[in-house]
């Protein structure tokens, strides 16, 4: 008695609707870009500087009253949002207050925080402040640069590694799929205005790692099959490879998603954004491995005459047990 998500010997033609799927991916990427440019991202204080205060009280969060209390302090842009979590009871009401970086202050002004806390305490005497975080504009500027650098470095490293282990067409295909994943993740963060901070970048990189992992497994099989089936159409060999690895793709995505969904639901609100980014990325990444990466490789074409005489070449790590 076995649970089988994918039947044996599938023979799905993944290119049957290639135009539709690849087209949909392209449209989704363009839409993501448009949304990103139009709505922008809801940057956390890591990237724009400022202060966030987490409040917790027994009374219902009254955003308008909070706003009215903070208004007289003239702190510029103040965002107040209520936080919901299934684990909170009725008497636990949590909100996040974000205050922009104050003009002309490099370092963080503690009296500003104290003033806000005092004002909010008047609205709800039971209120406590479980966390207060401030980031100065100087650091946030550097964090943006570091984040861009990290994503760039990850893409470059992947391009190089895949090129080293496979062929350049594979490298371009894999990185194309990665760009797809990044754009779609940024798109959804922009669309729903989910807070985008340093942890999101970490999530984005993890997604890159997962997506490339998936792509590499398919490419590895493709490389093997290309040697095995020298005469078959590239398109057929690709379909064969994806079908052969389909069960594994679904199993691994399945276990990973199981774990992630457990964390998403039960892991608490503090890391929900982070976990959401990874969960979404795993879904998109799995899709892109199957429908984006190899389409690019097909488009670019592959040198079929693998002049490497030995098929274990590029497989040097295989002999650990001999």
């Amino acid at each position: 008695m076995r649970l089988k998500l994918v039947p044996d010997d599938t023979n799905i033609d993944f290119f049957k609707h290639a135009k539709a799927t690849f087209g949909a991916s392209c449209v989704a990427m363009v839409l993501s870009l448009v949304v990103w440019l139009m709505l922008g991202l809801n940057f956390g204080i890591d990237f724009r500087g400022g202060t966030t205060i987490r409040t917790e009280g027994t009374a219902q969060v009254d955003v308008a009253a909070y706003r009215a209390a903070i208004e007289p302090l003239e702190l510029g842009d103040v965002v107040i949002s209520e936080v919901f979590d299934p684990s909170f009871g009725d008497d636990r009401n949590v909100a996040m207050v974000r205050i922009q970086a104050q003009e002309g202050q490099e370092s963080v002004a503690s009296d500003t925080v104290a003033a806000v806390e005092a004002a909010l305490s008047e609205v709800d005497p039971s209120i406590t402040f479980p966390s207060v975080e401030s980031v100065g504009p100087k650091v946030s500027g550097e964090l943006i640069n570091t984040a861009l650098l990290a994503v760039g470095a990850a893409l470059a490293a992947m391009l190089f590694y895949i090129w080293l282990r496979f062929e350049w067409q594979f490298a371009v295909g894999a990185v194309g799929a990665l760009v797809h994943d990044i754009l779609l993740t940024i798109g959804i963060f922009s669309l729903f205005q989910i807070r985008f901070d340093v942890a999101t970048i970490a999530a984005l990189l993890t997604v890159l790692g997962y997506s490339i992992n998936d792509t590499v497994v398919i490419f590895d099989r493709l490389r093997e099959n290309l040697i095995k089936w020298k005469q078959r159409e590239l398109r057929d060999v690709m379909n064969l490879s994806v079908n052969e690895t389909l069960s594994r793709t679904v199993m691994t995505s399945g276990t990973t998603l199981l774990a992630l969904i457990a964390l998403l639901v039960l892991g608490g609100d503090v890391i929900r954004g982070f976990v959401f980014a990874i969960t979404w990325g795993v879904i998109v990444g799995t899709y892109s491995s199957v429908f984006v990466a190899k389409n690019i490789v097909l488009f670019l074409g592959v040198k079929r005459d693998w002049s490497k005489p030995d098929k274990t070449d590029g497989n040097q790590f295989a002999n650990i047990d001999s």
Partner: protein
Amino acid sequence: MLQIPTWKRIFIWAVVACGLILALPNAFYSRVEQANDARAAIEQSGATAALEEQAAGWPDFLPSGLVNLGLDLRGGAHLLAEVQVEDVYASRMDGIWPELRDALRDARDEVGTIRRVDEGGDQLIVALSDPAGLPRAMEIARGLARPVSTISGVGAQDLSVEGRDGQLIVQLSPEEQSATDDRTIRQSLEIIRRRVDEVGTREPTIQRQGEDRILIQVPGIGSAEELKALIGTTAQLTFNPVISRGGDPDAATSSRQVVYPLLDEPETYYTLERTPVVSGEDLVDAQPSFDQNGRPAVTFRFNPTGARAFGDYTAENIGSPFAIVLDEEVISAPVIQSHIPGGSGIITGNFTVEESTQLAVLLRAGALPAELTFLEERTIGPELGQDSIEAGQIACLVAFVAVLVFMALSYGLFGIFANIALLLNVALLFGLLSLIGATLTLPGIAGIVLTIGMAVDANVLVFERIREELKTARGPSRAISQGYERALSAIVDANITTFIIAAILFTLGSGPVRGFAVTLGLGIITSVFTAIFVTRLLIVTWFDRRRPKTIEV
């Protein structure tokens, strides 16, 4: 074909056993923590019965390394401070001035009369009455320069001297500036460490970050504000001669004078001589105490140099006031009643008991050489951290059970092998984290959960491959060995790419993100190890015993 040499079997089980033993303390977190604290306390201040008992809570022969909990899990304060290293340049210039003045005065015939015209910045500018004497003055100033005392600055002098429009401009050379910066940061680190240690908290992190920044993380402290009050004060104590007293903040008539407000009456200003008689660097001790009227005060004692300078000055200036200045505010300005020879004294002011205690701590730890600017501060309440741990634990557990059930349903017996490997994998991961003393953060917990999900990947790859091989290969034994062999290149490539990402995250990330990168990276290592060695050993051992004609994966 399916043989694994005995030494290899022993080695694999030995690694697993090591990992399990190293991970063991984490299962009894609070007990081990108490025992460790008790042992540290015995080491420091001798044993008591209660401490002995606590220390015995965890046996000596077992490892006691724990995974450190990050600030976001334990609660506490985090500060990123930038040291204003330039502050020190000005005081260096002030230090050089008397020497330069004397040297130039000795050569008065050649350079004419001199006057210091700068405002105490990082340049020392001296105007000469006779511009023709500039070359000679520059020569004299250069004669005062000393070689820079660092390896990188070999051959360089510590002063750079220029002449412009009849003015002599002296400043620190770039080599000396970087050497000074380095000293300033290290001094600041040391003083911050001493101040934080004075309040006695567990495992504070105080480390240099980049060129001129210091990261301070103190678990268990109430708020970043408290921490800032403790370390942010420069606590620069000086005793300066008083020139006059008044209400005008701009009363200074020359660059050699400064005007500071009185601490308790901000409208009252004292005009003081910039160069102090004695400074806090000469203090050897400071204790909170009470004055003759029973008000909180701080008593202090100078070292011999400070005591002599203080004694000489009080002997010469009986009847005139001098000011006790702390961080550019006058605490009090008593009139010198008599010669004070012993080098000890008392600071009185409108202190509360806490304030006098705090001041004594600050004075004892020494003054910060430069001011700190805080670029980032975070306070995390202990309850929030506790909530996160609990939520993380539940999520881990649920993820675990879900994956275990899923694997068992999909692969039967082989799935159970993979599940054993998965359990060992998480144990090994905790063992490794404890061994290197890594810090577990909230994203780190997410990393573990992600590892639980992804760790089965290598096994899935192998099992799927075995399934395929079963269709074509001759016999189950061959299918198993082929399955492992052929799946390996995919496993290696897939994990190396993820590992590269973890490495990039580790290099460029900081704090919680770094904690995530560590668990992700180590998780890859342990999962590959358990998947290709441990499950294989399990399968081969099972296969040897049963010798099944057919296998079902």
